């Protein structure tokens, strides 16, 4: 296990994630011709929430501990995701564990929503589940493509294989599928169906307040970050940069570009209905399957 990589990954996940959120809000404000909050606003929000009163609608233990567990699951995922440091943290995990710890975090949030006894939260959890069902097959197909191409189930091996062998047709195809599904994995418009503030008042998070809400916000930010890092460090790791701080910095810049792109799309699009989102994902699945087929014939 590499301690440097662990520290770097956790630092990026816990300390830098809000900065991306701040940047997103600034860009959306610019598109809306508003002044917008400062980039540090996301940090301020989280710090303020940590000190605010914790209001609980349920005495259930699940309701109490699920936010921490969700954050912990996404932190484990962040530790598994390659973020520029060569070889990664070296956790005993592979693409299956990567996907499943993400699902575990989502499961925690959904079960917490059901424990809150609020019908809006229930609706949000159901929608989150349906989004999961339509988005994850694409992510999985993309990851399998990469596994077949690189001959390994480990994310770090996939990243280094891609770095060593240069772009290949199937990997680019898979990368495009992942890019097109990114907006949904980030949970942003037009796919913020599960939260939908002005429709079901925040979905799963409706009964959360204070420190619990802060943890959940952190958890969701980290989830956005790991999906973006998956795209940039497994499917677009070039060019090879030798000292790791440089590689990490390059990855961060690429992630920032992705966030800017996502912010632009978010500012310009209305929310889709869940069935529209599902049919979009259905079409996208064919792109992912095509990538898989290309990988099978070796291009």
């Amino acid at each position, binding site marked *: 296990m590499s301690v440097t990589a662990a520290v770097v990954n956790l630092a990026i996940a816990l300390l830098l994630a809000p900065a991306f959120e701040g940047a997103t809000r600034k860009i959306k404000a610019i598109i809306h011709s508003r002044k917008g909050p400062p980039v540090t606003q996301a940090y301020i929000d989280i710090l303020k929430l940590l000190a605010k009163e914790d209001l609980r609608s349920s005495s259930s233990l*699940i309701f109490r501990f699920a936010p921490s567990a969700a954050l912990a699951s996404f932190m484990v995922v962040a530790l598994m995701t390659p973020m520029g440091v060569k070889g990664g943290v070296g956790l005993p995990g592979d693409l299956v564990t990567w996907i499943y710890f993400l699902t575990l975090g989502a499961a925690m949030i959904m079960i917490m929503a*059901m424990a809150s006894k609020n*019908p809006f939260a229930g609706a949000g959890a159901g929608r989150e589940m349906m989004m999961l069902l339509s988005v994850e097959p694409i992510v999985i197909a993309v990851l399998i493509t990469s596994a077949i191409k690189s001959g390994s189930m480990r994310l770090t091996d996939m990243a280094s294989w891609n770095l060593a062998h240069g772009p290949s047709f199937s990997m680019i195809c898979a990368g495009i599928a992942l890019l097109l599904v990114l907006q949904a994995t980030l949970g942003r418009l037009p796919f913020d169906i599960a939260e939908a503030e002005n429709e079901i008042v925040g979905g799963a998070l409706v009964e959360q307040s204070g420190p619990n809400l802060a943890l959940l916000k952190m958890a969701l930010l980290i989830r956005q970050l790991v999906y973006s890092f998956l795209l940039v460090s497994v499917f677009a790791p070039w060019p090879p940069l030798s000292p790791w701080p440089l590689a990490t910095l390059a990855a961060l810049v690429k992630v920032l570009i992705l966030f800017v792109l996502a912010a632009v799309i978010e500012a310009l699009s209305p929310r889709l209905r869940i069935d529209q989102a599902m049919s979009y994902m259905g079409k996208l699945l064919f792109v992912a399957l095509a990538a898989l087929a290309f990988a099978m014939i070796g291009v």
Partner: protein
Amino acid sequence: MNYTNVEIAFLLLLLGAVVSFFTRNWRTAGWLATGFVGLSTILAWRDGWRVLMGGETLRGPALSLLSLGSELAVSLDPLGAGFLLLITAVSLVATAYSIEYMRQYHQEHPGRFYSLLQLFIAGMVGVVCVSDWLFFLIFWEWMTLASYFLVTFERENPEAIRAGFKYFIMTHVATAGLLVAAVVLWSATGSFAFESHRIGLASSSGVLKHLILALYLLAFSTKAGIFPVGDWLPDAHPAAPSGVSAILSGVMIKLGAYGVLRVFWGILPNIGTRKEIIVWGIIIASLGALSAFVGGLTAMKENDSKRLLAFSSISQTGYIFLSLGIGITFAASSDFFALALLGLLGAGFHILNDAIFKSLLFMSAGSILYSTGTRDLNRVGGLSSVMPIAAAAALVGVFSLSGLPPTNGFASKWVIYQASIAGGQQFAPFILVALVAFFVSLSTFAYSFKFYTVAFLGNRAASQTEPRPLPLMMSLAQLVLAFACIAIGLAPSWAIRLISSMLGVPLSQIFQTNSVGGLAAVSTKGLMPSSWSPIALSAIFLACFLIAEIIRRSGHARTRMVPAWYCGEEHSDDEVRSRAHGFYLPFNEAFAKVYPRWIAFRPPRLKGVQFLLDFDAWLYHPLVREGGKLVDRVSRSHVGIPQLYIMWQVAGMIVVLVLLFLMVR
């Protein structure tokens, strides 16, 4: 003559059945049955464990039917031993669970349940302990009959009777196939032994061989509940009392997989050509994938707790077949034999894990039924305050079923994903199987999430009668299984070592195990580098959890309980309750027609035969009617006012007197 432990265990079960028959009190009968099953479990484990560890077949004294070429003898090889351990252990827990659960049927005779239950367990023990097709069929039939009577235990309930009838017909049609296969090979070889049937199968011509294999597959996949021939399962499992549902879904349907393992792994690779093995492997894998997909999506729509779990059984058996099919396919190639072992190991491991968490979840559904009196998930809610232990156990079961780390369900699915992805690298169609496996795993999560959250979380339903608290014994039974789920999940290498000796797979050719129970694929041809070390990752998860808790407490926020917020409106708890039918509606509409509904074909001109078979119609009812008329006529003379009787008496006296006078003169 000295008996093997297995034989004593079997006889103990029979003795227990007799004893139960003469017991009047439900509780006494329950404890007696648990005692008998417990004793025979211990005995069976002694033999089974020895066979599993030693790898040698245990043979017991024989009862020979030489003229038929058949013998009744204990013949316990590692494969049978593994199943024996599973059957007895799960049955013991389910019997202990039934002690309190069955007391709600106090108006019935306990012998009707416990005698049949022990006979049922004895039948299953018999199935895995013989190596002779004649006695295999006898025990198979014994098991089916006993379970039929258990499915129709609620004989007043027409739904249960219909479910039992469907089960009876479907499994018997399939067993007929097994019988035909056995008789055909017997006529060729003159013996019923497994070994001679293997030789007989090897020497039969191509068409006959595949016909027989197809009959085997039909019979075993019907029992296993594979879609579409397992259509009996979603009706029969909910109808049975919950302890029996746990055994049916937990172990009985796994015996279908046992049969497939025996024939398609034990026999086929030795006798088939390369092409034949591959074709059968692909058939089994695609049946499994289809079954997993259809079962998983149908369960998402179900609002009946036990029916939902029954569809889930169809889906999880699909996983077992899928992995097994991959294993069989690669058994043909010597280059990628590691993949064959991997697929086989995944199937075996999932058999073990599904047996544990599925019986746990059927017990959870049983607890809901016991407490609220309904299986309808729309009419229950908020039960975690009534049965906290059972709710915690159910949460573990749900996590296992959905395959979330670090439970045992994740461990076996991890092996299955390895097999299907690495298999797909060599043989492209298996990639689709891998995708189906992943997708179905998500839908498994979706329906089990619905099952858990609707029943145990949220608000109490208003229509619901005051839920009964759960007796300790029922909670304990579930707790034991939940503990097994976590233990196997945290240290999969120990369980997988047992599975590998059960299947005769050299584990070191596939996985390296580390000291804390983790697994890592060895670098050999066909396998991909991967690893799963649950204890290490759980420790890291716990560390992260602690960091999160520290962050949480860093602001010293105060806590206050508030009512749930409904955007300023006021609602009663029941109005805002999440109901089961509202879940995943758009998704279910998109996959509305995935489980076909068949209308049973009814032969039109068989009225006469039907009438002839219906003894009630032409014998019993007319007899009763005539007898009743006769009795009526007699009784009419006795119904009347007292004066009438006195008048008759007076008239009789006069007649007697007149007769006396006539005679005396």
